[in-house]
């Protein structure tokens, strides 16, 4: 088996990791915790706003005062269903909230309300693109659960403090099947999932605020063997770290096995500073959560028409948008991918491209605008150049009013000073010179001043480029390049 895998074609083996005893395959499954975008918590009316004073968004329910009862926030249910639909998943018309029991100071009830045996969303899938190949990754389930509060250990020498602002905030736990085979795939999966959630508006995907975080399950095996023992790496909070965590964990497991050891099933933490994972708790130390259906909540039931109504109002999703951009605007698959990665970017592009040359619009949005935004660390929302301005610029190029080169100057003006593109071009005399008389005059002057070059050009026609450059320089870049070429060719007799 091993030899077969080794010799079995390079492309298939591209994900394999070389070890001392041969190649290894890494198997990854992800559990992503995504904070539901909702104004209030899963079972109380408290605000979910980030960054408030500690314990300022805490209701009697969130603090688990005696006699308090949870009431389901319907918006969180709708968001979970929308997400399920976006993941092409089965929506369960009946689901059950359970209690997951454990003691921790930031868990006021002494249990987390979660969904265990009957989640709200069942199997679905996500398509990811890695190295130009499309792969389907299975979704095992999505369930709703409460977030815990936060313990703060660095405020006093004698006490820990607890902030319950997050206590009770709704999370969606989205569990993938163990379908991922490399760090790159794991990263592509989370990236794509994040894009879908952001399109749906069901999670803002802000990993810095912890609104999207991943538990990564990693195991290794020789290709074709049965699954190895897995370790769960908890709470990895950036796409970059997910890649690093998979790589170092896979390598650690391979080294253990190749040294004759066995991987222990355990929960581990990734330390980005040291670039290593370390043990958090072993299987033996795992909690017995004593799950049972929460008797304070009836089973959650809704009918198909509720789901159908949400489905009817779902926004266009990234895969659909991608296909449409390719078809409608004639974009390359790559350009379409870049544009649909963020819904705001795609919307911006469409505002520029609608009724215009799609490829030209894509070129300007991706290369000029995104390039500049990236360089200055700005996002599209804060772009100094609006889609209307960029559209105006594209119009001027398409009409032949300005050249591509002038357009770059115009873009600079729009970026730094703003204004109406057509007006700027008019006022500042940036219009392309298509008046052949003026161009001819410029060409004549250049020819007259450079008899030696004229001789050289006769022997070597590629010298034409030098003449074009000179003419453009003397016209301040405003001469129509096509006209310059034509006139030069005639005058030089090429």
């Amino acid at each position, binding site marked *: 088996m091993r030899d077969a895998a080794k010799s079995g074609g390079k492309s298939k083996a591209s994900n394999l990791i070389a070890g001392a005893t041969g190649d290894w395959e890494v198997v990854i499954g992800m559990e992503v915790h995504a904070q539901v975008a909702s104004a209030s918590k899963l079972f109380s009316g408290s605000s979910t706003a980030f960054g408030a004073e500690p314990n300022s968004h805490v209701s009697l329910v969130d603090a688990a005062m005696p*006699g308090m009862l949870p009431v389901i926030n319907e918006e969180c249910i709708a968001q979970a269903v929308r997400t399920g639909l976006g993941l092409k998943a089965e929506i369960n018309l009946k689901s059950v909230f359970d209690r997951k029991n454990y003691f921790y100071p930031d868990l006021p009830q002494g249990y987390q309300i979660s969904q265990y045996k009957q989640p709200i969303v069942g199997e679905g899938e996500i398509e990811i693109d890695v190295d130009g190949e499309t792969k389907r990754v299975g979704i095992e389930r999505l369930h709703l659960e409460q977030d815990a509060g936060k313990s703060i250990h660095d405020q006093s020498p004698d006490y820990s403090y607890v902030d319950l602002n997050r206590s009770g905030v709704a999370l969606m736990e989205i569990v993938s099947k163990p379908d991922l085979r490399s760090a790159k795939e794991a990263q592509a999966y989370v990236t794509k999932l994040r894009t879908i959630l952001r399109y749906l508006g069901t999670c803002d995907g802000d990993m810095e605020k912890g609104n999207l975080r991943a538990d990564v399950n990693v195991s290794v095996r020789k290709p074709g063997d049965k699954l190895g023992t897995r370790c769960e790496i908890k709470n990895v909070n950036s796409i970059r770290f997910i890649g690093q965590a998979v790589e170092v964990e896979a390598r650690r497991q391979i080294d253990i096995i190749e040294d004759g050891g066995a991987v222990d099933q355990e929960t581990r933490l990734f330390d980005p500073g040291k670039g290593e994972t370390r043990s958090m708790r072993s299987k033996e130390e795992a909690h017995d959560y004593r799950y049972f259906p929460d008797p304070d909540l009836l089973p959650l039931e809704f009918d198909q028409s509720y789901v159908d109504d949400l489905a009817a109002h779902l926004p266009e999703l990234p895969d659909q948008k991608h296909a449409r951009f390719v078809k409608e605007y004639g974009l390359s698959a790559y350009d379409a991918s870049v544009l649909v990665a963020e819904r705001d970017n795609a919307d911006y592009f469409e505002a520029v491209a609608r009724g215009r040359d799609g490829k030209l619009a894509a070129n300007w949005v991706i290369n000029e605008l995104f390039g500049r935004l990236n360089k200055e660390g700005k996002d599209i929302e804060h772009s100094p150049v609006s889609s209307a301005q960029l559209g105006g610029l594209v119009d001027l190029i398409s009409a032949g009013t300005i050249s591509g080169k002038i357009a770059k100057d115009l873009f600079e003006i729009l970026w730094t000073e703003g204004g109406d593109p057509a007006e700027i071009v008019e006022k500042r005399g940036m219009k392309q010179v298509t008046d052949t008389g003026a161009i001819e005059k410029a060409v004549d002057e250049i020819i007259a001043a450079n008899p030696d070059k004229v001789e050289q050009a006769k022997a070597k026609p590629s010298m034409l480029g030098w003449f074009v450059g000179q003419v453009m320089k003397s016209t301040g870049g405003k001469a129509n390049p096509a006209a310059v070429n034509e006139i030069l060719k005639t005058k030089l007799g090429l």
Partner: protein
Amino acid sequence: MSDLTDLTLAEARDGLKAKSFSATELTKAHIEAIEAANPALNAYVLATPEHALAQAKEADARLAKGEARPLEGLPLGNKDLFCTNGVRTTACSRILGDFTPTYESTVGANLWNAGAVMLGKLNNDEFAMGSSNETSAFGPVVSPWRRTGKTDKLVPGGSSGGSSAAVAANLCLAATATDTGGSIRQPAALTGTVGIKPTYGRCSRWGIVAFASSLDQAGPIAKTVRDAAIMLGSMAGHDPKDTTSVDAPVPNYEAALAKGVKGLRVGVPKEYRVEGMSKEIEKLWGDGIEWLKAAGATIHEISLPHTKYALPAYYIVAPAEASSNLARYDGVRYGLRVPGKDVIDTYENTRAAGFGKEVRRRILIGTYVLSAGYYDAYYLKAQKIRTLIKRDFDEAWSKVDVVLTPTTPSPAFAFGEKTGDPIAMYLEDIFTVTVNMAGLPGLSVPAGLSSEGTPLGLQLIGKPFDEATLFQAAQAIEDAAGRFTVGDRWWAAPSSGAKKKPGGK
């Protein structure tokens, strides 16, 4: 005028309307009765006379303006399981310490919004776990009842022992109570009072300290069937804050009393003739059957085959839910905290010091039955039994309208008699837990006295949300059996010399 505390709730209501006395006078009479009786009975863990007099004053103003609400000026006791805004609430556990809620239970709020006056907080078994009120952190409640010619202290039943004793001793006109496995009906039966556990979902559980969420229900303990009907009418109702409460209209229960039982089909389940049932309980049951028959009802033997599994299944479900519900008492946010070297140590110290023996026992049982590897064998199986019990009743409802059984297997017992034997104590609930497991309404009505001269009760079980029929049938029994009140007020201090205030902060 006779003692105002002798009045029933309905009589007091009518007297207030007729301006025979004021709400303030009525309230003062009860405050004095509590001061005199509580040192002996320990029914109240906290009296709130100032609070009561303020409410009474407002009631008098409304009565004067002719704007009386249904319970205007009527003084009630409130079980300490009900959270009270600004008034200490402990569930009679040390772990809650001096916990003072900033909120009022929905049932409590319903009563006060109907004009009722709160006299104070009533004793109960710790977290409502017990059948004798002997597990309270404030000490046991003494029943006002004594065996004929004896002075042994008897239990008032539990867990609502403070409620039953206070009503029986005229220390309030009626009281709130809760029932998870029999905690309203058993104490009512043992003290000659009327208690009803309504259908699960009839009353809101919001603001009531939870014991076992799928079984807990609030209900009243009162002096008469009519009083219980009046009370439940104000306590019940849908509450959006409790999603297990049911959005269904609350009928006028008091109006239903007059309907009688002509043609009512009464079921007598053969499985309730348990082995070793005493002759006097058997006779009591027979009397009940005869009274209902005489009033025009028809009697039908029925079978509830899964009855024998109810008690063991209950003692899995209730502790399981309790073990989780009581996890919040961890010393972190409120109540008792006994510091330790680290957080685990603090948890352990706090919970060891804060919970009594019976509560600890049930937390351990509950934790065990929910543990990995045991869940299916215990909790899941118990839930299946619950479904079978419900099905038994569903079948019975095709033949009968109401079921008649004894409330308890025996009359009130003496202090300490069953505390050493948890199983014997749990058997107190044998006729009542089935009703909680099925979520049905159950009512206990006094029906006679034991050979020892202490009260015995009969239980009526009804269809879901058909409390009205229970009141009708109970009224027929009360009409035939009469009321049972304590003759000798042995507990009352001879003069107003006993100034020791009950509970008190």
